[in-house]
């Protein structure tokens, strides 16, 4: 569906510049450019600073994970999928593991599910803090980066203390989670899944994260220039966003409360009390604000989970060699970047017959050509930054 943008202001400007006819310049933004978050390439036709036409080119980061998954066993695939969106690696594992579990008919014990939930919310915090760090940087403010990264480091330390990995935890097992080092084989049903002192450290780190949110809000949202650069820029109406398959904070900033944490049941989010952050105008500022608010909500969820973490086993009974019975399923989850889904088709072997990965960033940037048309170059950077995509998540 193609929706025409409002062209009233463009017409008036054309009238001014009609005397000097200059040919459009083709500007290649990327694949090597500081603000394309990796290897996204935009072929932009620019008239001065104004962009008349944009063609996004993707695929420079394609690693063939869907095909690779067909020649791996189920336990091996977690190490692939957490490299899709590398800033929130943990969250990528969850929908895949849940999909495999559903086909096998096993369910992870409650404690394992809660630990998964805590860690995926931590992944959300670390992903959104990266955004809090990089977005002002793209608008020219260097210092918020350090505020955000310092708090993120605390969260990553916690993730590392549990999983052993900061970016690629590879922590989920079918039917449960990996016990921490030295606590015996997976089948030993101990509760030594999170290290000693983890709960107290988490409480401490969450307070730190909230403090950082306050600091960032003061430093960034209180800045007139930041507001001038983001308010009313890159407005995305809900209907257009939905047509393009935009999801996650990008869609919620436009004023809808579509959140799979409330609408799906891949993790026990229904036992937690939290709000879905929703924006109003769908501009860059709202997308920034929604993410800031989501950090706070994630902290709220983690605090509740830490207080009420149930005891019990962390691993359901599964066969030694994982074989998934014939069938297919689709599990979707609210990842930090948006909706992530795995369409898993099994023919009964030890690996999937086909694994289709629906990644959030791919759909989110599908509307780049629409939203960037008619923008000027500084706004391109502001809009692209506010969409918070990761190229690994786009190309897979």
């Amino acid at each position: 569906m193609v929706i025409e943008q409002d062209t009233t202001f463009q017409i008036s400007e054309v009238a001014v510049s009609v005397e000097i006819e200059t040919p459009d310049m083709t500007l290649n933004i990327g694949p090597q450019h500081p603000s394309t978050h990796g290897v996204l390439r935009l072929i932009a036709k620019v008239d001065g600073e104004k962009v008349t036409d944009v063609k996004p080119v993707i695929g420079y980061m394609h690693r063939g994970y869907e095909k690779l998954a067909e020649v791996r066993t189920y336990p091996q695939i977690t190490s692939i999928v957490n490299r899709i969106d590398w800033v929130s690696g943990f969250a990528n594992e969850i929908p895949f593991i849940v999909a495999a579990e559903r086909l096998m008919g096993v369910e992870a014990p409650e404690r394992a599910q809660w630990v998964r939930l805590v860690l995926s919310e931590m992944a959300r915090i670390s992903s959104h803090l990266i955004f809090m760090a990089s977005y002002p940087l793209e608008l020219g403010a260097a210092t918020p980066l350090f505020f955000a990264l310092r708090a993120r480091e605390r969260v990553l330390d916690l993730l590392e203390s549990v999983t052993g990995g900061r970016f690629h935890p590879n922590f989920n097992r079918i039917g449960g989670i990996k016990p921490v080092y030295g606590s015996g084989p997976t089948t030993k049903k101990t509760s030594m899944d999170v290290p000693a002192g983890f709960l107290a450290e988490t409480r401490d780190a969450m307070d730190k994260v909230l403090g950082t949110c306050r600091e960032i809000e003061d430093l960034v949202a209180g800045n007139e220039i930041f507001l001038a650069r983001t308010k009313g820029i890159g407005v995305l109406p809900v209907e257009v966003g939905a047509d393009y398959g935009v999801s996650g904070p990008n869609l919620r900033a436009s004023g809808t409360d579509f959140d799979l944490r409330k609408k799906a049941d891949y993790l026990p989010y229904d036992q937690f009390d939290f709000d879905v952050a929703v924006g109003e105008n769908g501009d860059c500022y709202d997308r920034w604000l929604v993410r800031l608010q989501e950090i706070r909500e994630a902290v709220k969820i983690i605090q509740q989970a830490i207080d009420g973490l149930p005891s019990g086993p962390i691993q359901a009974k599964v066969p030694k060699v994982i074989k998934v019975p014939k069938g297919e399923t689709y599990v979707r989850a609210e990842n930090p970047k948006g909706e992530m889904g795995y369409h898993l088709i099994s023919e009964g072997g030890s690996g999937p017959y086909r694994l289709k990965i629906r990644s959030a960033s791919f759909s989110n940037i599908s509307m780049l050509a629409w939203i960037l048309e008619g923008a000027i170059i500084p706004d391109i950077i502001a809009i692209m930054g506010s969409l918070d995509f990761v190229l690994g998540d786009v190309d897979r």
Partner: protein
Amino acid sequence: MTLAIVFWAELAIKIGIIAVAVPAIGMVLGFAEMKLSAHMQSRIGPYFAGGRFGWMQLMADGLKFMQKEDIIPADADRPVFRWAPALPLIGTMALLVIIPISAAEFGIIQDLEVGIFYALAISSLSTIGVLMAGWSSANKYSLMGGLRAAGQLIAYELPLVLAVVGVVIQAGTMSMQGIVEAQTAQAWPYVVTQFLGFAIFFVAALAELNRIPFDMPIAESELVMGYVTEYSGFRFLFFFLAEYVNMFTMSAIAVTLFLGGYWFWGIPTDSALLGVIVLLAKSFVLVFIMIWFRWTFPRFREDQLQTLAWKWLIPLAVLNVIATGAFKVLL
């Protein structure tokens, strides 16, 4: 005969002073930027080179730049590309000449009747260098950076000049030395009466220096490195040095015009040493504010700068000129 010798000796000394001052100021300010930005961001900053505080970091960097290959793109307009970095530095050096450091005989390198007029004219030279660099690099990002700098020049030059007019009216002279003497005579700096002019001058100076929040010609996140994208090695160092020394010279001009220059309550104005200390202290306060801005603010858009300049700064500056003129006539 002896007169000629005196003239040439004097000239040699003056050139020597400028030749020493430019890299020295560049290094001090570059180092200050490193350390201050580090402290603003809870980092340590350079600490290894030189053993203590990393004070040799900038010298090490300078040496590194000199060793690097001087790369000229194949499609570049070679002579223009080669000479572009010289212009900002020439402009900077020419500006240092008219900054008075004391009321003594050698308190200024060259006092001109039209000192401030000269300063405003010369300070635009660096933009020509920027435009040359942008045009000759054969790089689209460079070109856009250069053109942005040119567009910026039109926006800020007018408020910059108009802000100075208030001071000139009040002092009744365009000589830099004369402006300081007028402030010394009344024993308070012009910033008291010309506060609006000072604010406008400072904002416009930031735009002239391409410092954040007006660093659109460079804009790392948009234009890669703007007009310096294709520069490397020694030529890049020229741009770098010119940027930092320009920061100082613009601050020193602002200090001279609005903050009393080398004059301060209770400090004799006929000592070159004390004068230099007072002038440096005042200038470094302004430089500190510029560095502070850089590490705090995001960047404006080019059209927002135009709006700011044409809708706010210029009307306010004109208002300031009219008010100053009216007071001058009435009082």
